[in-house]
């Protein structure tokens, strides 16, 4: 009897959470989807709600994602490999492990404060795309480290022994066996961390993201030698969540519609990315039967 009641209770709390998620999505979609059209993606923000678009925001989000991925992935994977394959049981590795657990509990806004003090004022990188990318990169670093470690840990020792038996060195074993076999798990972590970064708002507000920006970063390709430049890294930026926050904090309901439309796009991207990560995780778990 009590068993049944508890089972119902359990099911209800699960359903409550999932229904809330569904309500959120539907509510956002009803308000936002009618506003989404081609102009919404190609217009700059404007004083007039019906003419405003998210061009500078999605370009900014894209540039920052690129920078974030570029600094967080190599660092996170390298750290994960070290902790799983090299580190000995001593106080240094214990300190690092404890620290990574702790980093996961540190509020994201304090990363923003650190970046404002360190990157913006001490290193004079300015309130730029580079600063934002580095900040988010450090923020998602623990996620990449933890998932890399899990992926590596699931590879059985027989693989390593077989590789050593063929005369491979430790690095060769990692480079040609461990990393390729764990790439699925690592990719899952990378996708999750980027989907986290794309929705992150607070630390970017702290480092001084602009809330109204009507120009694009410097194009990375130019007509003369050396054809590429990195000036865009130093340009000011805005991103989709900040654009949404900005519209949301205005009193006029017309801007709230814009906020909802931006929210739909953001939500769609994070859900697709997370769905992809779940799919990858399931697929690799099925395929790899050691």
């Amino acid at each position, binding site marked *: 009897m009590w068993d049944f009641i508890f089972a119902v209770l359990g099911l209800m709390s699960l359903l409550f959470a999932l229904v809330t998620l569904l309500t959120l999505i539907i509510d956002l979609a009803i*308000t936002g989807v009618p506003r989404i059209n081609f102009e919404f993606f190609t217009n700059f923000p404007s004083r007039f709600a019906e003419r405003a678009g998210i061009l500078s925001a999605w370009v900014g989000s894209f540039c920052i994602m690129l920078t974030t991925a570029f600094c967080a992935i190599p660092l996170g994977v390298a750290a994960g490999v070290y902790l799983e394959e090299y580190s000995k049981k001593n106080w240094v590795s214990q300190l690092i492990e404890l620290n990574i657990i702790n980093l996961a509990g540190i509020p994201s806004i304090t990363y923003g404060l650190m970046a404002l003090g360190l990157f913006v004022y001490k290193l004079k990188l300015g309130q730029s795309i580079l600063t934002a990318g580095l900040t988010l990169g450090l923020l998602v670093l623990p996620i990449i480290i933890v998932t890399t470690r899990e992926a590596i840990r699931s590879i059985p020792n027989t693989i390593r022994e077989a590789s050593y038996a063929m005369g491979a060195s430790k690095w060769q074993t990692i480079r040609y066996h461990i990393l390729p076999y764990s790439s699925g798990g690592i990719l899952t972590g990378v996708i999750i961390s980027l989907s986290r970064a794309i929705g992150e708002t607070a630390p970017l507000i702290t480092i001084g993201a602009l809330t109204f920006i009507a120009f694009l970063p410097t194009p990375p390709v130019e007509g003369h030698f050396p054809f590429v430049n990195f000036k865009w890294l130093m340009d000011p930026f805005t991103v989709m969540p900040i654009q949404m926050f900005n519209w949301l904090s205005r009193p006029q309901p017309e801007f709230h519609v814009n906020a909802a439309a931006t929210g739909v796009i953001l939500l769609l991207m994070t859900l697709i990315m997370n769905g992809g990560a779940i799919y990858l995780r399931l697929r690799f778990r099925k395929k790899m039967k050691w």
Partner: protein
Amino acid sequence: MRRLRERAIETVLFLAAASSVLVTAGIVGILVVESIPFFSHVSLKDFLTDTEWTPLFENAHYGILPLLCGTFLSTVIALSVAIPLGTVAAAFLSEYIRPSLREILKPLLELLAAVPTVVYGYFALLFVTPLLQKVIPSLGGFNVLSAGIVIGIMIVPYVSSLSEDAMRSVPGHLREASFAVGASRMQTAFRVVIPAAFSGISSAYILGISRALGETMVVAIAAGMQPNLTLNPTEPAATITAFIVQVSLGDLPHGSIGYQSIYVAGLSLLVLTLCFNVIGLWLRKKFQEKE
């Protein structure tokens, strides 16, 4: 040559791992360094006992209490939603349903944590608050109640996912022993599995608390950003994080007292979450020794 290469690679990888410690050191260092000048303007006593927080006004007051109060209030509301929901959901996932169904439901639940916080802010301001106003007509447009509830829903997966892992790692023979003496599923869950998994469950709660304390966008959007010394959840309030957002949106000159005040606020927040993390570690140690 080959040994040299191996050593070089190991060193590079070690530096990458050590960089995570540098991040922590950087956060703590910058917060402390930027906060120190603040305390040459404001005495520690004023900071801890003054009941007003108006650092940007003409007649400035620097009492952290109203911000702490707002943070405490939103966290308590969030936890009173997240802990019951999360724990019951975890027990249900771990003890009641088929593993195949769990493989579907658990990732779905985790999607709750993937939704960007600014979207939750939208939800709190434009859906939950109007809904609550139908029940409590006196409720204002900005209030801590709806922000807290929404944060609670958002952190359900943090609580349930880790708790479920902890419950599932309880060895099966404990359950079998419990069933063998005639206990029901629910008795087994509450008297055997949950106590046995308590260290894991408590660290799930601690992570939930850290998340709720540090959550920014929902409170910045839906709670009104007004430092209020009140424990009434239907009133607007400001949390530590919301204050930082509010100040950052303005144009504060580097080195001004307003600029320093966000670092002081950030430092207070960090000390608060660090305390909870330490309690979490201590709990885990304590219960692991007992086993």
